[in-house]
């Protein structure tokens, strides 16, 4: 071997050593730099803007104070996820589906600590009605229902589906010799196997459970400006709009539930929408055969008409029986039927709204479709006044397939989102 070659080999070795050392220095140094940067980052974003809190404040000032107290628990990143502009796009970003952040705005409960969630719930408690099974209580029950749904679905996807529906035939049938592949792949009614679309049963990038609820303030909470409390998740959309220290809109308010009732761990039966449903049942039960015939709609419904993204789409012609044709007793039942929805707002606001709806009662219509029992898919009731709009519909269960589940929506022809937007 030539001397030249030996020299070359040595030089190469030296270079390798140098390169290795350099790489090590870069890696270790880089690691330190990144670690430092990230700890600094946490410290910086930890400190969100602190806002004034007055625990003695009542009414809208109390809501603002609770909102500020919640914001004060958030990092600046979380604050910017929560505090958004009061635009039409943000205000209408709600849904009755388990579509998570793909259809909603705001900070998600799953990203918050227990203390932060408690602060968020304090905002709801301050802003919503205090009635039994309505307002704040109803919202908490809706979140609990979603946890029941989540655990039921977890069980069913683990291979033990809830009761297979007894109403559907067991042989998936085909009159065409070239039967489709889904036919042979899932021959029984039990929801076995992977869904052909959407991946996880929740779908749309979301799922069930109380951690998948979102809170946002559209506009800055204040006792003088215009802003909205925007809260919701699967089966729930709360929109309370404030202007100059007053509530100017308690709608749209979507509330649905599956399962419609269940037994909690303490043995009590929880049925979040039964109070809502019972008002409607009392109302329709009071109608005579002739009145029922007038109230009956020719169309059928498998969902509410004015769900998400149907803002401002109220039918131009009211249908059903006009409340002016009803007795004084029946009129009271109409008002009583509305109340659980209107009572989502704080008690004072609910009273004010109820007064308005009472004044307009004679121009209000009651209608229904399907049966009046509100216990079968397609059973539907509507109250449509100059201002108020309430729909209640029954659907077959999605996870609890032996139960119906309810979708309902409360809107106001002129006060949705505090009449900040015109949907023409």
């Amino acid at each position, binding site marked *: 071997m030539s001397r030249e070659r030996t020299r070359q080999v040595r030089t190469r070795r030296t270079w390798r050593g140098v390169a290795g050392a350099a790489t090590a220095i870069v890696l270790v140094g880089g690691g330190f730099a990144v670690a430092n940067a990230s700890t600094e980052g946490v410290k910086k974003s930890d400190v969100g803007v602190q806002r004034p809190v007055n625990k003695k404040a009542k009414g809208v000032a109390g809501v603002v104070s609770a909102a500020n107290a919640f914001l004060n628990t958030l990092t600046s990143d979380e604050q910017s996820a929560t505090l958004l502009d009061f635009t039409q796009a943000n205000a209408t970003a709600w849904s009755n589906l388990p*579509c998570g952040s793909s259809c909603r705005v705001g900070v998600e409960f799953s990203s918050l600590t227990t203390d932060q969630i408690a602060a968020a719930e304090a905002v709801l408690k301050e802003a919503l009605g205090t009635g039994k099974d309505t307002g704040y209580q109803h919202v908490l029950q809706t979140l609990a229902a979603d946890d029941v749904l989540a655990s039921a679905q977890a069980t069913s996807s683990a291979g033990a589906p809830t009761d297979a529906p007894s*109403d559907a035939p067991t042989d998936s049938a085909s*009159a065409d010799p070239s039967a489709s592949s889904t036919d042979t792949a*899932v021959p029984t*009614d039990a929801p076995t196997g992977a869904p052909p679309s959407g991946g996880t049963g929740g*779908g*749309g990038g979301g799922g069930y459970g109380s951690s998948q609820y979102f809170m946002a303030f559209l506009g800055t909470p204040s006792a003088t400006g215009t802003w909205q409390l925007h809260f919701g998740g699967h089966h729930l959309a709360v929109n309370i709009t404030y202007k100059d220290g007053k509530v100017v809109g308690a709608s749209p308010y979507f509330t649905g539930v599956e399962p419609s009732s269940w037994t909690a761990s303490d043995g009590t039966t929880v049925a979040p929408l039964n109070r809502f449903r019972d008002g409607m049942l009392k109302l329709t039960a009071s109608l005579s055969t002739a009145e029922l015939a007038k109230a009956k709609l020719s169309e059928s419904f498998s*969902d509410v008409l004015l769900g998400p993204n149907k803002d401002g789409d109220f039918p*131009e012609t009211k249908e059903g029986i006009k409340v002016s044709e009803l007795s004084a007793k029946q009129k009271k039942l109409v008002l009583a039927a509305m109340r659980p929805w209107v009572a989502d707002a704080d008690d004072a606001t609910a009273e004010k709204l109820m007064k308005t709806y009472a004044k307009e009662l004679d121009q209000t219509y009651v209608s229904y479709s399907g049966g009046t029992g509100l216990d079968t898919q*397609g059973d539907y009731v509507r109250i449509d006044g100059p201002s108020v709009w309430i729909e209640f519909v029954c659907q077959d269960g999605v996870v609890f397939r032996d139960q119906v589940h309810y979708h309902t929506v409360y809107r106001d022809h002129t006060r949705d989102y505090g009449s900040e937007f015109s949907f023409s």
Partner: protein
Amino acid sequence: MTGPRNWLTTALTRLVAGIAIVVPAVLLLGASPAAAHPMPHSVVQLDVYRSSVAARLELPVSDLSRASGIDLTETTRAQLPSRAAAIRTYLLKHIHPTTGNGKAWRVAIGALSLSRTRQTSTGPYRELTVAAVLTPPAGADVRHFTFRYDVIVHQVVTHVTLVTVRQDWANGRVDGEGTTQVGTIELDIRHMRVPALKVDLGPGSAWRGFVAMVGLGGNHILTGTDHLLFLLILLLPAPLAATGGRWTGLVGPRRALARIGGITLAFTAGHSVALAASSLGRLDIPSWPVEAFIAASILVGAIHAIRPLFPGREAVVAGVFGLGHGMAFSFVLAEMHLSTGQLVTSLLGFNLGIELVQLLLVCLALPSLLVLARLRVQPALRLTGAALTGIAALGWLVDRLGLPNPVARAADSAGSHTTALLATLALAALAATAWTVAGRLRARPKGLDPAPAEPGLSPP
């Protein structure tokens, strides 16, 4: 001097193996979010032909039963034919496509079938699938029409129908996979009526059809494992010499290259001729004998790779069996109901796509084929490859003869990992080239003067 080679071989093998695992994993993980609806909606999926539109209606049974008054919720396979007349009458009342100036199209309702399915957030539900054909009056434009359709939604007013296009040759949609949404048919709540959907599929052009057909052709050979496997298994022993009924020794790079070129050309000529003849002749060939013939061709190729059956006449065999593969290609075109003009354009585009991808794949396989032949493990590799191919071919053959089996299913599914396949071929080609170059560098005489480059490939 075995140290560096072993190191290089091991590294390259690991790299290939790693990539072969990672690529499909990445492909599998890429799931897309779907649009969500609380209640199942209908879908009307359109295949746009030259002078008619085929529509596939997917109707949720629950809402359909409520709207039509025909209760199908308990109907079974056996009972469906007895309800078919009522269903057809109902559908004809609610499907009215018209030309822009109001002239009615003809609507024919075909096969009906029931199945079970689910959409995002709906849970499982039963669905009626209906085949319909919509035909405009003579001379009217098939690409622009007013779709008056209110199946279900005339009664169940919350029901939504999505209208999509699956196949539209003149708009470059030819692969039959995925759909584009044309519009939604739903209630105008303010006025409580269902507006007609204006369908505008654009002007369409032969060029877009042609380009799409090139893509379809390329994709067809890439994902159709059987065609590719046939060609590759014939090419596998091309660099080997046959003596006394055995593959022994090498024939030299030039001869090997000539053989590979000849086999590829003959296969191309065979399938091109058959494709053109059966497409233009609009021959209605049943598919199973052709598919079985193809499976048999692969089996013959696999046996030939083990023991020479027809040494030196591979090109002839490739050409003859190529005829069968060409007929299979023509099924793709036959399904598309094209006009003669579209068919000729499609034929050119489709075949061009096939040849381009075939050329690419042969070029990628070339270095590996040549290098493999020289490795000590060559017989083992060749026998393993041929045995695997033979098993797949047997599985296919049994499947095409009417006995579906897991071997055929597994072999078919291999075609869905095209990225992994291409990556493996490319890496193998790189590795083979690197190995050759490394061999040559080692073969260089010691000292500082570089040796003159040798022609052809040299053994290491």
